[in-house]
Every structure is written in structure tokens, then in C-alpha cells.
């Protein structure tokens, strides 16, 4: 059973045991516009909560994606290298960015559930 949580910076996390899959929300992609490039963290890198972990570039601009929680990067979505537009077509599905081993479960407490995120973007 996975739970999906959200940050105020428009990242989503699907929590499955001690692993979180991280991406940007559909709202975020709609604000960015056409995504043309995604830079992902290296597997094995240890991220600290709120540090810049990935970059998503539209035709217009580059935007940082922040680590929503601390932990080690276990896997990245290589499909985004060849098809960055997946971020526009399936932001909260096939266009996940990276998987992270949750270092401190207490950090999840500060994140939003879907209802709270909907209110945040309303």
C-alpha cells in the first residue's frame, strides 16, 4: 500500500515502506510548460531535505527540483533523458524522477496529503 504526499514546492512522493518515489506534480508541469530537459541526481548520492536534487528545463527557463526529504538516491528514471515530454504527459506516473531511501521518517510529517495539496494550489 503506497501513500502519496506533496510538498509546497510541488513535488510528490509515493511512499512504499522505506522507499519514496519522487516527481513533480501535474500542477507544476502545467506551470512550467513544455519540458525539454531533465537533469537527475546520481544514484548513490545522499540528499539533504530541501537541497537542489534535479533540474527541469522548459523552453523558457530552468527550475530546480528540491529533495523533499533526506536520504540516498536508489534509482533514477532514465526514460526522462530520451523523452523529457513525459513530464508534461504523465507527471504523476511514468515521469517519476528518482527513488530515495527514507533516512528519517519524521520528515514525512511536514508534508501534505492530497486534500491539503489541492487546497494549496487552489
Amino acid at each position, binding site marked *: 500500500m503506497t501513500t502519496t504526499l506533496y510538498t509546497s514546492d510541488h513535488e510528490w512522493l509515493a511512499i512504499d515502506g522505506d522507499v519514496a518515489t519522487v516527481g513533480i506534480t501535474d500542477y507544476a508541469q502545467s506551470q512550467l510548460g513544455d519540458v*525539454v*530537459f531533465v537533469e537527475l541526481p546520481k544514484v548513490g548520492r545522499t540528499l539533504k531535505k530541501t537541497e537542489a536534487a534535479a533540474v527541469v*528545463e522548459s523552453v523558457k*527557463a530552468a527550475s530546480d527540483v528540491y529533495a523533499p526529504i533526506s536520504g540516498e538516491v536508489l534509482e533514477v528514471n532514465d526514460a526522462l533523458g530520451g523523452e523529457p515530454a513525459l513530464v508534461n504527459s504523465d507527471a504523476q506516473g511514468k515521469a517519476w524522477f528518482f527513488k530515495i531511501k527514507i533516512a528519517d521518517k519524521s520528515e514525512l510529517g511536514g508534508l501534505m496529503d492530497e486534500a491539503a495539496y489541492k487546497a494549496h494550489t487552489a
Partner: protein
Amino acid sequence: MLSRDDQDSLKTTPLHGLHVSLGGKMVPFAGYDMPVQYPAGVLKEHLHTRSQAGLFDVSHMGQIRVLPKSGKVEDAARALERLVPQDIVAVAPGRQRYAQFTNADGGILDDLMVANFGDHLFLVVNAACKAEDEAHLRANLSDDCIIDSLTERALIALQGPKAESVLAKLCAEAPAMKFMDAGPREIAGIDCFVSRSGYTGEDGFEISVPAGDAERLAKTLLDNTDVLPIGLGARDSLRLEAGLCLYGHDIDTATTPVEAALEWSVQKSRRTGGARAGGFPGAEKILTHFDQGASRRRVGLRTEGRAPVREGALLFADSAAGEPVGKVTSGGFGPSLNAPVAMGYVPTSQSALGTKLFAEVRGQRLPLTVAAMPFVKNTYKR
């Protein structure tokens, strides 16, 4: 973020209501509330302009008439030549030419279009510079000319391979115009000023229209299924692929026309040995650059990877060591090339096509190659 007061002080163009009704995402630009994109998005808007036609609101730009007190347009042309390094006298009635206002240091105050309308000159200048340009013209040309800012007109650009057939339905004379022809034409019964030019690298037209008729004309053009409204986002990616300078970024008061690789825009008559050599601000420095070369030069840059290299990125000769040799002044993703494109300044010794350089992006040095511009072949109807 803008405060409420800032937003309230933004100016609007006569097409503002139309942009909002079309779903335009409005942003502040040069003091105006302008559409950066419409629901189609930058990528589709860009590609549509290259394959069919796009309509751009460029009403924020300045439109200025320079009227000779003598009644002879040659006198206005000679007067304007005191401020620009171009041959304005040679611009025939019904023709237009690209020019720059230069300063005493040889830098560029603004770039502009100058058209000869038979009995006066018609100038189109950048939005962010228009107040300074008008003051500059008044300060320097008022003995010979009347400077008349046309604030009650909109400016609409129609660009792309279908621009001609779309405009032909409203203006029978449009197809006969050639690249850089310019003058008064009637479009859909409205008295307009039309030039066959633009800022995309595509064939197309720029249409100056009375403010009160602008929305009707824009809607009539948009009634064609070939025409989509295009925002500032795609306007920027289109001009970048076309290798065209954006004032304040690729050219400014610290760049001479020679450093900016705009030699083609300075006619022989104004260069050393020409019939009217010099006589414009900064002539000494600019003509020295022509005669002896400049130490740096604006070039096109292509990357090997897919990561865009953007404005401000420092350029290096080496993959790891050394001081920066130059800087990117415009950069982004070129939708028609499906690849990043950039332009920037490099030492002239490293400006040859094919020269390998590196751009620093997020702490990494990405390989780049000096490449020919335009990046996308232009389709002007000459």
C-alpha cells in the same frame, strides 16, 4: 513577486482584452502586461509559426515618425544619419532598413527599423528604450525634424509560411511586397502601415494599425485556421533560432556593431573611405573596429548534449582549468532544431566556426561548438 501596486502600474496594449480572452498567460514585460504564452504552449506556438502562421502583439514597441521640416525626406534621412551608422539616404521610398542608435563609446543604445514613407521616416524601436529613443531624437534632430511618437497605434506581426496567403485575403497588394518593403496599405478597409519583415526568420509582415481597429484586425486574422496567437516565449525562441539579437541581452551600450557581428548592417558609404564615412556617435571606435578588427565577437553556439545553456553562463576554452573567455548572452531550447541553441561573446581568436568551447552550467563544463547563424534557414521573400 510583483506587488499589487506594480501590477496596477503595468501598461496594456490595445489587444490586452483579446489576450486574456484567448487564455494568454500574462506577465510583465518592458512595463507592459503581455502574453508569454497561450494554452497551446511555447513549443507548439513556435512550431506552428514555422509551419503555418503566428500572430504576435508587438504593440509595446515604439512607433515614431521623423518628419523633415523642409518637407524633403532626404533631409530627415541626413539628420538621422547623425545618430546611426547606417546609410539612411539610400533607403528608397517604400523600403525599410535595420539600424542601430550608437553612443559616443561606439556602443548600441537601441536597434530599430527605419522605413522611408516618401515624405517622412517611420521608425520602430524597442519597448524598453522607446522613451529614451524619443528624447534622443528630439535632442539631436529637432532643428531639422519634427519627432512624432505614434502612441495611438497597435503593432501586429503576422509571421510564417502562410502569412502571405492569409494577408492576401485582406490586402490584395500584400503578395507583391518583397522583404523589407514598407509603407501605408489598406488592410480589411483599415489604414495601416505594413512592412514585409519580422523577428522570427520567417517570411511575414508587421502591421501598424490604429488602436481602435487593432482588435478587429487581430480577430479577422485569427479567424484563419492557419493562424495561432503566439506569446513572447515563442517570439524569443524563434528569434534565437534565427540568430537575431535581443537588445539588452545580445547587444547593449557596451557592444559595438562590429563586436555584435552586425557589420552587414553598416553600409560601405558610412565606413572609412565611404561617401559619408563617420559622422555618427562613436564613429571613431566603430570604424577602428571595422578597419583593425575587434577583440571579441558575437557567435552562435551549439551544444553536444540536450541541456540548454542559458543567458549568463560563462564560457571557457578548457574543460576544467582557466579563466572564463566569454559569456552566453541568449540561450535556450530551439524547438525547430529540437536542440539547445545559444549566442554569446568570445575572443575573436576563438570565434571561428567549429571552435570548441565549454559553458559552465550548474558547476559542470558542457562542451559547445561555435556554429553558423541563423541556426534555422530564413525564408524571407527577397
